[in-house]
């Protein structure tokens, strides 16, 4: 971020592009200013506004872990104009970035706890940064379980690093919506698999990210399992413009998702006006 002008993006260069699924691409970008790249710090869960100059800006979670100093990683699902153009970028192309923005996860408060990640589709992106941070500091956390689902095996992001996650002593449960030839994981929707796995809510925090409909049923099932509202964290998506709490676009009542979020506990959401 430029200290004197928060609207001014840092110039950066795409270093690598990974095709995750048919509509999700991961970009690894490096700030052109080497000193700024070296000094770049952020919290897991914070976001960046990526700029394609001439097209516009859009918000994405920085999904590399804070320990990674070589690049910043973003996974982008094709949705509209800006994301379409981001998908056309390749290594060497220029891009703009305003980051870090938003609150990020309160990982300090999660120390000593058991963790449950529940992700669907592109929703694995914000979970990835926190997961890798926890694996970096594995002794600080208890049991870690991940339930991650997508429509089909080809719709799962980060397939190439699942083995590495498992080496970090996490219990990775993968599920797809229906049977596919060669698929050895679970079959069924994420909320159902959650109920079948039935992780204990005792001393555990659940972090949920995915499409709104998945979140809705996952929250319901978590309650059934005995999770309290303050034991569940989620990230909100709202249409954004400035990303710095000024333009007024992203409000839910008094809360601005761009500065007060995107991470909220379900207890916080219950205190907000019902307008999601």
């Amino acid at each position, binding site marked *: 971020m430029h200290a*004197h*002008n*928060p*609207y*001014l*993006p840092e*110039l950066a260069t795409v270093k690598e592009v990974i095709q995750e699924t048919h509509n999700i691409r991961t970009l690894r970008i490096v700030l052109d200013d080497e000193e700024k790249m070296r000094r770049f710090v952020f919290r897991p869960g914070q976001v960046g506004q990526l700029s394609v*100059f*001439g*097209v*516009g*800006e859009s918000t994405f979670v920085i999904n590399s872990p804070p320990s990674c100093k070589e690049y910043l990683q973003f996974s982008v699902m094709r*949705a*509209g104009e800006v*994301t379409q153009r981001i998908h056309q970028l390749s290594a*060497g*192309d*220029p891009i*703009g970035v305003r980051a870090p923005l938003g609150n990020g996860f309160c990982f300090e408060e999660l120390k000593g706890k058991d963790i449950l990640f529940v992700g669907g589709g592109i929703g694995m992106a914000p979970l990835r940064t926190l997961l890798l941070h926890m694996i970096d500091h594995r002794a600080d956390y208890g049991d870690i379980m991940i339930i991650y689902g997508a429509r089909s095996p080809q719709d799962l992001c980060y397939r190439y690093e699942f083995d590495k996650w498992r080496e970090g002593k996490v219990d990775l449960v993968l599920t797809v919506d229906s049977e596919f030839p060669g698929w050895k994981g679970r079959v069924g929707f994420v909320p159902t698999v959650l109920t079948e796995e039935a992780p204990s809510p005792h001393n555990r925090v659940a972090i949920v990210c995915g*499409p*709104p409909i998945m979140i809705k049923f996952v929250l319901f099932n978590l309650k059934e399992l005995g999770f309290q509202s303050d034991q569940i964290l989620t990230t909100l*998506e*709202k*249409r954004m*413009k*400035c990303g*710095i*709490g*000024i*333009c*007024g*676009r992203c*409000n*839910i*009542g*008094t809360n601005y998702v761009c*500065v007060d979020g995107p991470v909220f506990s379900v207890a916080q959401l219950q205190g907000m*006006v*019902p*307008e*999601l």
Partner: protein
Amino acid sequence: MSRAIFIPRDGLHPVLDRLSAEMDVWVPVASGPQKCGGEFVRYVPGTVPVLERQSTTPPKRILLPQVESLLSYAYVKDPEDASRVKINLQAEIAAKPTVVFGARPCDVRGFLLFDRVFTGGPFQDEYYRKRRENTFFATLVCRQWDAACFCSSVGSGPADMEGSDLRLTPLEDGFLVEAINRRAHPILKLMGGEQPTKTQLEAAENLQKETTEEQVGTGDLTHSGDDFRGRFEDLEYWRSMVSQCISCGVCTFVCPTCYCFSITDEMQGLEGERLRSWDSCMFYQYTLEASGHNPRPSKFERYRNRIGHKFSFIPAKYAGMIGCCGCGRCIRSCPVSIDIRKVVENLKENACACS
């Protein structure tokens, strides 16, 4: 040095000519086909200010232009590697000393909210801050309220000088102009004008006193936050209040406290600009997400947010500050005559939602 000057009615032009030779001066003038509207324009010698009635649109665009360039960019060949493209990025933040001559207390009050939003953190909007620091308000003691005005109901009043630098008191034969803070002294000096007589000073003081005691608008709308929360899910209420709304956005356009903006890119060839332009929360597209989901799909949710923002969210966020200055412009300009006062008054439990 004198803290007050007198400008005779026929002496306004020389004063504004002198001022405008040194800085930008904005004045309200008649506008529209029948010249019955009003807007603020940059003064040039010959401009005829209209100080006898409130302008249709507020002076908001002086500090928040309807469209402004935040930055410009150009795609250029990398001098070190001709196969690669680089971006040249430029942001220019500049502001000229500016006087807004003939604003009203409600107009200036809008900027008190802007100050909080744009410069109160966590991030600073330098484009706004630079302009604000360079802008001086010469504000009228207002004697021209009409049936739509209600500044006293929102914690202000027709003689409220908060946020202003100079006070203009209209007298029979001219204006008494007083500096109300130190930064205004050089402006007063530039204006020239005459030494006020004792009678003029007394007449001005009397009018100021009288005006301060006026109650413009009935009732008190400053504590409506809880009532709003209570009504939030009462969709019947919102339907009954705003069923005629056609989502035209005029209410936000003319409002001195509405500042929501959009940011878009424009490109011509290999060069372009990132523009900031006014937007309106009354539009469907405002909150529409790429997935097709819209948290405010109908005009009821959108109008509810407008009321909530002004009377509940802003007060909760900014220590009781009300996000409405009671200027009445939205009431006068709404094509279907929606009256924001009624909508807020009726939030109270047991208030009749059908009046």
